């Protein structure tokens, strides 16, 4: 009896362009504009909220972007806190 090997599942490919662009050397297009090792994004924010961010950054002698990045890092490391904001 001939033993037939189990066929491997064929990875689904949508179309030829998707097949070609799946190669390791394909140019990857991510969101935002590349700035060195970082990506520049746009962010809309409530003006009052922005003022509070700037005030806190000033207190900590930090830049706005630095404080926002620190907050993002903190949130990603520790999760989102849903505690009521202080008055």
């Amino acid at each position: 009896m001939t033993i037939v090997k189990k066929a491997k599942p064929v990875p689904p490919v949508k179309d030829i362009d998707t097949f070609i662009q799946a190669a390791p050397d394909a140019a990857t297009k991510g969101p935002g504009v590349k700035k060195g090792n970082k990506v520049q994004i746009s962010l809309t924010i409530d003006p009052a909220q922005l003022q509070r961010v700037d005030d806190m950054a000033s207190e900590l002698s930090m830049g706005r972007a630095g404080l926002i990045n620190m907050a993002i890092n903190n949130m990603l490391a520790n999760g989102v806190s849903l505690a009521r904001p202080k008055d």
Partner: protein
Amino acid sequence: MTIVVVGNTKGGVGKTTTAIELAIERARAGRRVLVVDGDRQATAQKAIAIRDEAGVLPAIACATYFDGPVLRSQVLTQKDLYDDIIIDAGGRDSTALRAAMSLADVLLVPFEPRSFEVWALEDIAALVDEVRSVRDGLRVYAFLNKAEPGVLSTDNRDAAEAVADFPQIEYLPKILRRRKAYSNAAGAGLSVTEVKVKDPKAIAELKALIAAVF
């Protein structure tokens, strides 16, 4: 019109040499031939340039496209101008190799009778599966290149039998053995039929391969 891509995700298996030899022999048979170099090392292009500089006829048209989408659109644009298009796609998974596989009639996979080369057939077989999910009509042949001398070579026999593990690939029983004639000729932008000191065995092997592919 036949589009043949000489491709393998494994490097060093003799893709460029094979592509050059096929292209020149087809041109010598009176076909209008375009060589497409899809390898960033552009070795095929250099070989054709050497042929041009030496003024050897027939002259072979050659274009180099490393970028897959560009290769695909350019080959589709130019295909009606030629009888045969031979694409040399570099020795790794690349957009150029994938683009060539997306439009070729034949994928010709040279492989050596060595363990690493046989293992690497799994990678090209996976790509064949993928491309066949989005297109029809691609014939895939593997043939032994740089094969061991001697018709009784167990390495050759074992490697040929290993292709049976990949139902996507048909083993083509046409062997190019390890001969200096191939590399010397291709390096000068020539076919083994054009060099001064001829190797009748190499010529016979090449002609048999061409007869099986086209």
